[in-house]
């Protein structure tokens, strides 16, 4: 090497004002779009009907979103590792029915035990999914589409058309679905805690970051010595456990459970995550976004009911809004990418 021009100097320490950086991040944050959409939706609805902002109404909103939020959080953990769990609805149904059965046969069971049992059952289902996906190394969509049918079938054969009614369950348990803490429904608090804990885990722990790495580039993950199978398995167990928890919450909230609880909710859950900016092919997105997505979807449902949109139009509007949400998210992502390109990678 004879040509030896002056090497570029080491980069200067970055001295951006932290404020501009914060604003920049905020703009980049994929969650931002959803917050805007949510705000607009609430605003429009409230202008039409101020009662939409009444405490009872807001409580209802929070309550309504709780189950979907818990499911979406679990789903996010799976999706960011480039998998998907379509069986969550069936797991929810199974756990909800198990909860009802347990309480109607042993009404004295403490609520904490019920929660543990439901969550544990979900975790077992998740472990089945995880084991199949991780050990047999097959696409999760196929496996969980299969277990969606299978778990639901098990649920149905167990229930045989029975229904567990509110009167069969102890009041102390049902209170979980209606009680509030400082005006906030307990279910919503649980959903919030789940979101924060899982979000913190995925953001700040090695094993959490490894899920992102796996989803971003599975080959590289293997080469970096990440225990891909074990991590994926764990994410499915987590997703299953949260679906089980969601089943318990479902039972508490609705009081009536039969084998059909949660039928078809899986697409909603995936939609919530996607609307919340979780990349469907893994690697990016956050549980906070997914939780917001779930909140947005349930709010859409509620506001359409409040706005007394022709019921025939409701579903069409929901679909349109999903498209709008992912479109908006895309727009923000492109904007961010352009910014990156403009700055160039060399020298920040």
């Amino acid at each position, binding site marked *: *090497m*004879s*040509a*030896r*021009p*002056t*090497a*570029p100097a*080491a*980069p200067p320490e970055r001295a951006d004002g932290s404020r501009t950086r914060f604003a920049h991040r905020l703009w980049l944050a994929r969650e931002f779009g959803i917050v805007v959409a949510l705000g607009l939706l609430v605003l429009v609805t409230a202008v039409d009907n101020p009662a939409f902002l009444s405490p009872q109404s807001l409580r209802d909103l929070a309550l309504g979103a709780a189950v979907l939020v818990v499911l979406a959080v679990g789903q996010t953990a799976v999706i960011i590792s480039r998998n998907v769990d379509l069986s969550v609805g069936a797991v929810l149904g199974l756990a909800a029915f198990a909860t009802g059965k347990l309480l109607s046969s042993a009404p004295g069971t403490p609520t904490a035990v019920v929660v543990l049992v439901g969550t544990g059952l979900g975790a077992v289902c998740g472990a089945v999914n995880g084991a199949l996906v991780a050990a047999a190394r097959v696409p999760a969509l196929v496996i969980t589409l299969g277990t969606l049918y299978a778990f639901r079938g098990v649920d149905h054969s167990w229930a045989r058309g029975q229904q567990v009614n509110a009167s069969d369950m102890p009041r102390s348990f049902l209170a979980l679905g209606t009680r509030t803490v400082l005006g906030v429904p307990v279910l919503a608090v649980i959903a919030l805690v789940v979101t924060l804990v899982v979000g913190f885990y995925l953001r*700040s*722990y*090695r094993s959490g*970051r*490894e899920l*992102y*790495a796996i*989803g*971003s*580039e599975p*080959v*590289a*993950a*293997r*080469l*970096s*010595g*990440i*225990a891909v199978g074990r991590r994926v398995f764990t994410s499915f167990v987590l997703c299953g456990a949260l679906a089980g928890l969601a089943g318990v919450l479902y039972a508490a909230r609705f009081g009536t459970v039969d084998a059909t609880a949660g039928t078809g909710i899986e697409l909603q859950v995936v939609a919530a995550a996607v609307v919340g900016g979780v*990349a469907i092919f*893994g*690697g*990016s997105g956050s549980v906070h976004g997914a939780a917001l997505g779930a909140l947005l979807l349930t709010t859409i449902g509620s506001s359409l009911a409040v706005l007394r949109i022709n019921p025939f139009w409701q579903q069409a509007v929901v679909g349109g809004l999903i498209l709008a949400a992912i479109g908006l998210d895309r727009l923000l992502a492109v904007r961010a*990418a352009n910014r*990156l*390109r*403009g*700055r*160039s*990678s*060399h*020298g*920040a």
Partner: protein
Amino acid sequence: MGREHATPLLEVRGVSKSFGAVAAVREVSFPLHGGEAHALVGENGAGKSTIVKVLAGVHEPDSGVLLLDGEELRLAGPAAARAAGIAVIYQEPTLFPDLSVAENIFMGRQPSRRFGRIDRRAMRSEATRLFSRLGVRLDPDRPARGLSIADQQLVEIAKALSLRARVLVMDEPTAALSGVEVERLFAVTRALCEEGAAVLFISHRFDEVFSLCQRLTVVRDGAWVSTDPVADLTVDQVVRRMVGRDVSTLFPKEDVEPGDVVLEVEGLTKRGVFADIAFSVRAGEIVALAGLVGAGRSEVARAVFGIDRYDAGVVRVAGERLPAGTPAAAVAAGLALVPEDRRRQGLVMEMSVERNATLTRLKPLARFGLLGGGRERRAAREWTKRLRVKYGRLADAVGTLSGGNQQKVVLAKWLATRPRALIVDEPTRGIDIGTKAEVHRLLSRLAADGVAVVMVSSELPEVLGMADRVLVLHEGRITAELGRADATEEAVMFAATGQRGVTA
């Protein structure tokens, strides 16, 4: 130095590895001594990367052992290799596109605070420190997506350095780098050696091998040929051992009388990437685009070919204006682009060699709109033969070929279209010396045959040896146009670093 008889830090002893019927590595042995850089050379497909993957714990050897400090070392996986103090830079960068550069470097071993929480600040400053040591300016916070191959390679290097490993294995780390980065890398590597680390270095560039390494092992067809101190060897000797014969001239440039203008680019601009690029290439000419890594050469090539859209400018092939953003139109007009990233852009890894080789010519190969197996296979066999692609069966997935052979498949699939104008982006990246001569001869013959060739290359000798004219890019602008006579290393480098006016 009296290391001959000391226990090597790491020793490869009698290692064999085969994939199905292909014996990729057969009974290979060599020592890696602490404080020494050891070169591993061989033709494409000789089994170098396979050895690397054995050292990395990716492949379990079928037979043979690794000895670390004289003790047998069993690697259960990449994590085990890392734990044993072996850091590996793979031939193909394997980054996580969605994660930040810093996180890519530290994945799986991020610095942590109390309760296992990741310490992002420490991670970022550590990354910055590594980059400044390598003399590159990469923002540790940006995602890895969109990094050029060179930048990706630099991140890989930073990752390996950050491990502070006792054994550093580098599989063609310099293939995508230009002189400046290479020098930086070597400086860092020498410093590591001084600290007692052992380095295994793979490259097809002999100047690098000879400037960095103290010892050299040659492999051929998966078998060990020789291990000697570099001081006892000459390039010709090494090449002969590698190839088993003498290699004709590396740059067999034929002089051709240029014909009509075939490819014409005017005022091509893409905001933030390149601006006001103008050049024209005549039939029979080879025009090189030179520049430092990240100068925007590949971006220009992509825009010309229609992969990327541009903000302003015109591209003409044989006088016809090409619509922007449609590679299909470019192909129809007789333009071909051999991209720089063969894994992502050049090949469909899961598809067979045959399917890849014919992918650009599906329409011409069809009869009455239908494809029949025979014609495709014949076409594929013809072109893979011409380029000496080494493969087992045409039906094998192209991903199982060695890097150099993959590159040849990319070339084959484009040459088969018989283009009027050919853009090659780093055409010999990762190609062994024998084949390189082959590719150069090929490019030269193509030009002689009336094809207009644009060659993007980071390898200065290649640029100087092959080009009729050299265009030098600096930060997205053409800073110099040098005729064959004026194109010297100094002149190109000065223009590439933006130091105009300094006499070459």
